[in-house]
């Protein structure tokens, strides 16, 4: 974990007032870009990552050596074609891939910040990433796109900067974290904090890592990303490398083995404190509350075109919650398209090979890019 890799990074010197009241400055935001910015600077797409994502959207992730987390969507000849678009993705504030987060070293002590890191929000994340856009001297993005927590950032971005993106595509997300969402996040946090190696968040001072707790958090969360049908079809009651039950607590079932594996690989690439902070930011997200309980007020000033996408088997951020975003946009006359994609892959559908999703998204982005460019001429 936290291998030092050459990450693109900017230090934001402008003071940023966080929602918790604290002001920060001179903090790093790590990012990656794909494709080329054209001379009119009209082809930039800002992608926001989800809870456990990072800036490595496409290609090989230099830290994990696996494919970028959105390789189905972003890349050469992919729905977001990097031959055509300039794609930017930043590690969110609170993350552990080079941006300002709990594992950042406090220069005065030489130690990780740990739980002295301030509580951050989706709004703070978005405001920090806006600094990156300014640094890259992009006056107006062609699109802001993201799924899950990335979708929340899309909504917050347009609310904060109504004239900075021509197109916004929030996918499989919500405008406000539900009790069920908060409950699952709390389960994960409690698993981490119950690990004796957590040490109130200062585990790095003792060269410890609450990896058991973090693995359990990941296992629980992973279940929420799948669907009942998907799980049943893929695993059912199939046994793992054995012909009969062993009458013990080993991983008899494939699903157990699968979840244990998911937990174990996760702890190698993710920081436990980052998991606490980012899930907290998601729980605090309530866009309509920021606008006195009226979600449509958040979009009142925007000329941005919206395309909202949900998935049939996503029970974490179900279609009904995505529809609420559509309703709020319609009630202020915003330009919004919406479709619920058929898929039994649950919330994770947006990350996976779901052909009708990939085709609709790609075709939509490309035709809209063409229409907007033609209109300008």
């Amino acid at each position, binding site marked *: 974990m936290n291998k030092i890799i050459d990450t693109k990074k900017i230090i934001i010197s402008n003071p940023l007032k966080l929602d918790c009241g604290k002001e920060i400055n001179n903090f790093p935001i790590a990012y990656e870009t794909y494709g080329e910015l054209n001379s009119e600077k009209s082809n930039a797409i800002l992608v926001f990552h989800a809870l456990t994502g990072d800036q490595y959207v496409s290609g090989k992730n230099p830290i994990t050596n696996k494919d970028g987390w959105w390789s189905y969507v972003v890349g050469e000849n992919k729905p977001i074609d990097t031959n055509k678009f300039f794609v930017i993705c930043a590690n969110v504030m609170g993350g552990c891939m080079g941006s300002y987060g709990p594992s950042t070293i406090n220069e005065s002590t030489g130690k990780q910040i740990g739980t002295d890191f301030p509580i951050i929000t989706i709004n703070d994340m978005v405001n920090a990433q806006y600094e990156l856009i300014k640094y890259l001297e992009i006056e107006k993005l062609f699109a802001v796109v993201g799924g899950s927590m990335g979708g929340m950032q899309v909504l917050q971005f347009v609310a904060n900067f109504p004239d900075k993106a021509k197109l916004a595509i929030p996918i499989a997300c919500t405008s406000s974290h539900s009790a069920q969402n908060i409950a699952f996040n709390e389960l994960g946090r409690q698993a981490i904090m119950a690990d004796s190696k957590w040490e109130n968040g200062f585990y790095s001072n003792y060269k410890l890592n609450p990896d058991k707790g973090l693995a359990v958090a990941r296992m629980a969360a992973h279940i929420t990303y799948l669907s009942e049908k998907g799980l049943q079809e893929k695993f059912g009651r199939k046994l793992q490398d054995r012909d009969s039950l062993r009458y013990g607590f080993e991983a008899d079932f494939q699903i157990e083995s699968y979840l244990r594996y998911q937990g174990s690989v996760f702890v190698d690439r993710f920081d436990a404190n980052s998991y606490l902070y980012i899930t907290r930011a998601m729980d605090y997200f309530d866009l309509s509350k920021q606008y006195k309980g009226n979600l449509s007020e958040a979009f009142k000033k925007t000329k941005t075109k919206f395309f909202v996408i949900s998935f049939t088997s996503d029970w974490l951020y179900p279609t009904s919650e995505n529809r609420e975003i*559509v309703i709020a946009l319609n009630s202020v006359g915003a330009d919004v398209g919406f*479709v619920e994609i058929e898929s039994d892959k649950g919330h994770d559908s947006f990350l996976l090979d779901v052909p009708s999703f990939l085709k609709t998204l790609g075709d939509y982005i490309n035709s809209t890019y063409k229409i907007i460019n033609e209109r300008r001429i």
Partner: protein
Amino acid sequence: MKEEFNIISNLIEENTRVLDVGCGNGDLMKFLQENKTKDIRGLEISKEKVQNCLSKGLTVIEGNAESDLKQFPKSSFDYVILSQTLQAFLNPELVINELLKVGKKVIVTIPNFGYWRVRLQLLFKGTMPVTENLPHEWYNTPNLHMCTIKDFYNFCSTKNIKIYKSIALKKSRISEINKSNLNYKNLDSHLGIFLIES
């Protein structure tokens, strides 16, 4: 189809805000976008068709007119179009009321069940009519509430809905419908097109 699109297009003023309810694969939306106005949205119940529209860059929402028109503010569109789908709703009266709320003006087109070819099939063959315009069999038709031009005309006057323009279409022949030729047009036309307002 083209004639119907032309007539609808002629009823619409340029650069107005339009909603096409039951927009299908977006053919009418595309036609109007090229000829009348860029500011056009669609509502469609079939996922596949919604995806088709979105792929063309059209702004379409997956939804059901019976439950999802409510989300649009009152008079938020200059025109709302309902092309040959009124008969497919569980409650056409409710849909018409919703359309009249959302749109300042509403364009409704109706496959005429009173057309003589339709009548003859029932009269002589004794079977439910199947025509070019109404291609389904009784057991698989999506059409729950077929009506005639005369039915819709009478419906509007009973409900105090103002008819601005009513046009009858037979093949590619276009004519106006009025009180005195209503019975004849009801027999002689396969499609009725109405521009109405509450």
